[in-house]
């Protein structure tokens, strides 16, 4: 059998001459199991052609079908008066004042970044930008969440350097400021780094456009870069001509071209705001196939495209390759036929091609021709919807249970005096200035608070309000207790937003896990999602979209479960924003919230007692919500001069970070703090390093202190005055349990800001070592 021409009316399709026949082996190579393949044959009433098999394998992949996650994702709260667009589109959209709306989304690019850190990370940023501007929104902020193996390994340093450079170069060139992010290091990410990129865009609600094809006879156009053979995963069997030698040379790596992206951005927004098009979608994962099939399914129509019309970078590309290519910087657009010339004119202005490649049909069939020959004909809705869904067994691993019940065995490496500098030198806690200095954070001239604080804040020109953005996840907590860890990720994000004065509005999530077919991984996934859902309900921050990344495993095992939460918040008046470092000598320092001294899963145990275990603090959602409301109201009344939430590292690290000052302050202010009364009943290590939630360290002008205390009481938030902000170049002085500690601010700053650069002095040295 060299080709399969099957007669079944509208669903007739034939293979290309000479292409590989569809055998059980070929089916397996496409990652389709027997159940799935059986369903395909039943649905078509015949054997699929090779092209069709490629299409199914793409759309029924985990990435496109969410087959292992959909049942769990359905439990997320997704509605609320602020929601304009929930999950299901390229990005979620929330309502803002004055007719404005915010579109935002997060996505992973983990595997490509493991193979080629620079291009992998860069194209990750490119993809998420497109997801946002296809909604008609202008990207105004980027964030990124990174996870790597420890920096002691040269390979990890190489990956870290390449990833950061890739993230930076792409966003810098397109001209979107990076306003925040996070970086974490743990052994589980060696060989499997995580790169999650988030984009936030602004639009007028009236300009929102959705990616649904309509109107029989309307035209499909590709816009942007030509299609090459990039990133056609597992496509080795697609073409018989392919020799082993050429296979070895075939680049699997997608190369990003941020310059073309910038043109695509401007052209797309111009097409959308001038009402020239009906729908637009980025050709992301699984390229043309998924964009065309999903747009058709959303509109409940059929489409017919001819891959022979798609502009390619190389001659002789097969329909299989054209459909599955993941070449970057491409869009699929639907328009009325009489608009095509105008669309082409707009694109030409931006130096881009727009090429008609097909049209909308009324028979509901997803039909692909190649120079006329029908190579695929599949019922469109079923192609998108009929992938089997799985709900694997979930069982908590015994190891996790044991770890949670355990206590550290080793004595602390250092006493309290040395513990603080040791913690500030730990890459997980140290300043990430080395990272965010490589990202343009001020382009667009709207950055009110850049990276380095609790959340980024931007103004919207012509309005009074502002947006706060953050991305957070403490994977150590999720690993030890997925449910509480999921809650904690949302709580920390909301706390960060509230600290700068923003009211949390909604989230997007990037769920990075191992192989879901392993019961202990699926347990982590299900429980973390339950935690996220409960927290989002409590805070009224619906989930507007997100991304699932499974199979993050390397020979040494699965990654720590990492459900990253990206959150957007609203400041009614952007001028009320609150920075995180202390700002004025003589201000009074307060701790908001109660401390029980929960050391389970703490950085202190990990860094000073070599122990990653214990039971993480239970997240008190009610206390978190009260704290958030207090912070937002206090900011609005201008009662706060600084606010910094307590998270990894605990109270002492939070105090130290506030005292150290911002990344570009000449010097920090220091502080003198007395915790004798505040923590009388709590063991010293728990008081200083416990990671209880629902806490923040704030400072206020002495004249405002009384009002702040009263407001905290009103909100039912414990408040304790613990000290005074010091003078430039001073010390951090701490009195507690009858002892006095003192640290020079200059030395703490040095430790905190130089920890990562010191380790990254020669980052590019060896890309292979330690593999």
């Amino acid at each position, binding site marked *: 059998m060299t080709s399969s021409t099957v007669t079944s009316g509208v669903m007739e399709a034939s293979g290309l001459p000479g292409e590989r026949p569809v055998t059980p082996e070929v089916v397996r190579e496409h990652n389709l199991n027997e159940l799935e393949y059986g369903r395909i044959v039943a649905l078509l009433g015949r054997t699929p052609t090779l092209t069709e098999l490629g299409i199914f394998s793409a759309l029924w992949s985990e990435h496109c079908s969410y087959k292992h996650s959909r049942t769990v994702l359905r439990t997320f709260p997704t509605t609320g008066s602020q929601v304009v667009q929930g999950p299901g589109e390229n990005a979620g959209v929330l309502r803002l004042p004055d007719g404005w709306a915010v579109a935002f989304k997060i996505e992973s690019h983990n595997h490509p970044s493991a193979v080629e850190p620079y291009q992998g990370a860069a194209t990750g940023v490119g993809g998420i930008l497109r997801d946002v501007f296809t909604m008609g929104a202008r990207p105004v902020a980027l964030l990124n969440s990174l996870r790597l193996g420890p920096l002691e390994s040269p390979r990890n340093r190489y990956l870290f350097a390449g990833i950061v*450079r890739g993230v*930076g*170069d792409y966003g*810098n*060139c*397109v*001209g979107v400021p990076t306003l925040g992010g996070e970086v974490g290091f743990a052994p589980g990410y060696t060989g499997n780094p995580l790169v999650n990129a988030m984009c936030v865009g602004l639009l007028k609600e009236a300009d929102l456009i959705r990616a649904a094809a309509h109107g029989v006879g309307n035209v499909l156009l590709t816009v942007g870069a030509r299609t090459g053979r990039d990133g056609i995963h597992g496509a080795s069997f697609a073409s018989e001509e392919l020799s082993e030698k050429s296979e070895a040379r075939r680049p699997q790596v997608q190369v990003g*071209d*941020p*310059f*073309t992206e*910038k*043109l695509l951005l401007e052209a797309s927004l111009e097409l959308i705001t001038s009402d020239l098009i009906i729908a637009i979608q980025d050709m992301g994962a699984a390229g043309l196939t998924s964009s065309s099939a999903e747009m058709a399914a959303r509109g409940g129509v059929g489409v017919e495209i001819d891959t022979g019309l798609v502009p390619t970078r190389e001659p002789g590309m097969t329909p299989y390759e054209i459909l599955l290519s993941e070449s970057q910087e491409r869009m699929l657009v639907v328009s009325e036929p009489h608009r095509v010339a105008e669309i082409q004119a707009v694109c030409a202005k*931006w*130096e881009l091609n727009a090429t008609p490649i097909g049209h909308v049909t009324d028979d509901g069939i997803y039909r692909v021709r190649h120079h006329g020959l029908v190579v695929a004909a599949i019922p469109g809705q079923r192609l998108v919807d009929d992938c089997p869904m799985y709900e694997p067994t979930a069982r908590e691993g015994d190891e996790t249970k044991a770890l949670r019940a355990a206590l550290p065995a080793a004595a602390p490496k250092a006493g309290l005096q040395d513990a603080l500098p040791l913690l500030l030198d730990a890459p997980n806690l140290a300043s990430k200035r080395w990272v*965010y*200095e*490589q*990202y*343009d*954070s*001020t*382009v*667009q*001239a*709207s*950055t*009110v608070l850049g990276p380095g604080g609790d959340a980024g804040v931007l*103004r919207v*020109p012509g309005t009074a309000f502002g947006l706060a953005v953050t991305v957070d996840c403490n994977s150590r907590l999720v690993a030890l207790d997925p449910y509480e860890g999921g809650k904690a990720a949302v709580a920390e994000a909301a706390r960060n937003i509230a600290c700068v004065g923003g009211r949390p509005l909604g989230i997007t999530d990037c769920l990075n896990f191992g192989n879901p077919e392993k019961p202990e991984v699926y347990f982590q996934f299900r429980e973390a999602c339950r935690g996220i859902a409960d927290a989002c309900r409590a805070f009224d921050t619906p989930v507007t979209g997100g991304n699932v990344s499974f199979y993050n495993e390397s020979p040494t095992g699965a990654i720590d479960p990492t459900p990253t939460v990206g959150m957007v918040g609203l400041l009614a008046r*952007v*001028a009320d924003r609150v920075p995180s470092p202390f700002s004025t000598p003589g201000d009074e320092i307060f701790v908001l919230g109660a401390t029980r001294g929960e050391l389970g899963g703490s950085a202190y145990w990990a860094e000073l007692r070599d122990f990653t275990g214990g039971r993480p603090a239970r997240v008190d959602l009610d206390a978190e919500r009260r704290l958030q409301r207090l912070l937002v109201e206090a900011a609005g009344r201008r009662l706060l001069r600084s606010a910094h939430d307590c998270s990894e590292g605990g109270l002492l690290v939070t105090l130290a970070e506030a005292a150290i000052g911002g*990344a*570009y302050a*000449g010097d920090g202010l220091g502080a003198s703090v007395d915790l004798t009364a505040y923590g009388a009943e709590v063991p010293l290590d728990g008081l200083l390093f416990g990671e209880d939630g629902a806490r923040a360290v704030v400072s206020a002008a002495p004249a405002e202190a009384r009002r702040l205390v009263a407001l905290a009481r009103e909100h039912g938030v414990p408040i304790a005055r613990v000290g005074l902000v010091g003078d430039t170049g001073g010390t951090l002085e701490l009195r507690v349990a009858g002892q006095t500690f003192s640290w020079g601010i*200059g030395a703490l700053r*040095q430790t905190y800001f130089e920890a990562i650069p010191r380790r990254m002095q020669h980052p590019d040295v060896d890309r292979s070592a330690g593999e």
Partner: protein
Amino acid sequence: MLNVAVVRFPGSNCDFDALRAAELVGTNAYFAWHRDASLRGADIVLLPGGFSYGDYLRSGAIARFSPVMQAVQRHAAEGGPVLGICNGFQILCEAHLLPGALLRNAGLSFVSKPVDVVVERTDTVFTSAYAPGSRLRLPVAHGDGRFVAAADTLRMLEAEGRVVLRYVAATESSPFQPNPNGSANHIAGICNAAGTVVGIMPHPERIAEGVLGPPDGLGFFRSLAAWRPRASTLNVPSR
């Protein structure tokens, strides 16, 4: 009202920022497209930051040849003021409207942060609103900001007082490297002999409004708004 043309190349990304800052000080600011042969009667030209033509090959190398740059060359030759910011500075050097070149930062990484600069020359079209010796804190964001020039060119620039901005440490005791990119003589910006063409690496347009922080950059725009063309050229379209 002064006409201020903000040139947009494909890949410009500080175009809106420059336009907004120019509008803020009450000028009639508008975009000129890279394919335009005319500046539509511009009194002043701004070349904004970004990655013109992707900054492929060398920053500014391709932009220099765009049609609009022929018009900018004429405008400059006739004594018309031009301010190049970041990528605009790189383009001015490539176009030989300013001497020297901007090479990859000495640290080899893109650098985005606030820097402290001192205004050394205040009789240019773009710095007249500052007091001599003013210290400003302005953001930089660039990968290619290391100013280099032949030794005699550098000497000439210094001798003629053509260094407009120079990186300095915030305080005498500041632990920070004042120079973010390894520029020769800590040069952050220079001008032509007449003080009409100015190129700077920092971004004053990003810090020209109080809501974003102390508006140290506003003076560049106040200066240009206060500039008056010679009577003979006032409101005579250049082409």
